[in-house]
């Protein structure tokens, strides 16, 4: 093992890698050793890729998703239906909805949820931008796809209160039993919601 005291550049790399989510010191050391073994070309292209993504990526000025061109592809795609808008907390939530192939409207990313314990109020989120967009636009239905945590749910109710007076329909993701799961293993609160939100079977 390299001694970090006599290899400050190596320990710096371990330190930086260790900041990545889910990477502990052990994994960071393993990754750093891997990079050290790589050819200069490979290591250089990794560094260049990190630099480039930071230089070229910014937020779309309409939906606040990451993009290299503003407005982003989702906002400019003529095949998408501008009457439907899906509101999510984070960019990764947009990716999840997109992967489901169930939604063909447009998006708005809040970049968080109302969270008093973290000092996050309406001004810290892209809520004013959402309201301006709704007042100007052609949206007829907003689908609130925030998380089902306390903060995500309260944010959805808060937004619904702001949006409804504009005469726009507001919907919320359904909540219930995960597909493919046995009822036996589902927690009480989820079963409770699933019973409350039950649906009639029609032919």
């Amino acid at each position, binding site marked *: 093992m390299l001694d970090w005291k006599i290899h400050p550049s190596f320990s710096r790399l371990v330190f930086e890698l260790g900041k990545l989510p889910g990477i502990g010191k052990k994994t960071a050391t393993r990754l750093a050793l891997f990079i050290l073994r790589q050819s200069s070309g490979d290591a250089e292209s990794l560094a260049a890729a990190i630099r480039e993504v930071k230089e070229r990526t910014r937020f779309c000025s309409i939906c606040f998703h990451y993009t290299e061109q503003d407005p982003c592809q989702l906002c400019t795609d003529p095949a998408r239906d501008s009457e439907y808008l899906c509101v999510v907390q984070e960019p990764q939530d947009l990716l999840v909805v997109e992967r489901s192939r169930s939604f063909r409207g447009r998006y708005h990313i809040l970049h968080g949820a109302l969270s*008093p314990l973290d*000092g996050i*109020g309406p001004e810290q989120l892209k809520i004013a931008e959402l309201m301006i967009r709704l007042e100007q636009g052609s949206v007829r239905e907003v689908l609130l796809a925030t998380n089902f*945590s*306390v903060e995500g*749910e309260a944010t959805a109710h808060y937004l619904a209160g702001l949006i409804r007076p504009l005469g726009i329909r507001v919907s919320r993701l359904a909540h219930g039993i995960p597909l493919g799961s046995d009822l036996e293993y589902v927690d009480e609160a*989820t079963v409770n919601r699933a019973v409350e939100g039950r649906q009639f079977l029609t032919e």
Partner: protein
Amino acid sequence: MRQEESEAIVLHHLDYNDADRIVSFFSLEQGLLKGFAHNARKSRKRFGSALELFAYVHLRWSGKASGDLVSLQDAELIDLHSGVRRDVGALALASYGCELVEALTAEAQSCPEIFHLLRAFLGHLSKAGLSLEARLLFELRLFSQLGYAPHFLHCSACNFPLDGDEVAFSANGGGGLCLECAPAALPLRVSPMTLGTLGRCLQAPVTLFEGFRFSERTLQEAGGVLQDILRQHLVRPLKSQSFMEQMLAGKARVKAIR
């Protein structure tokens, strides 16, 4: 390692690593504790939705796992207080209440009265939403349980009953002060009726939140008095305070328009 269990209320949680969660909770048996819930975010088997914010749960844990953290074994949900999820004002005040309890109580010191107070407070917010009255009653009762309640009915300096149109208040000086004893520079002036109301509220059961109505003046003055007490004991400002005050101000505006 000794197995412990208690009813508890989830005050706060932090995500840790990829799947773990660190949870602050206030337990009936041992007061404020912090616990480590291994794999709580990926596997729902042991905790289900019981580690959600403000949840009233039955928790099981074993001794100190590492440092100050107990190791959480499993949890059973008793009441999610789900009304708080439908009302951002209630969320704001519930967060403030939980942050206050976490900031002011010492770890591992049993105080069943505070547990019952917090549980009733969250239950009330879940049903009735936020109100200045609820905030005031919660703060007052919490301070009283912590031994911070000052003199409301008598002058803290000369012990004479407080009366007249106006008296002074200083948490630092022990509470209410008659105008003869109060230094002229003391800024906080209130009606002795406000202090009397606060004193009387302490006679009611800690779990009772329904049916209290205060005048605009009482609410405003009592708010100032309680903030003065709070400033004496708080080491750093609460994160949830400004958000909650925005929500209360918004509600007051709506009320005024109607």
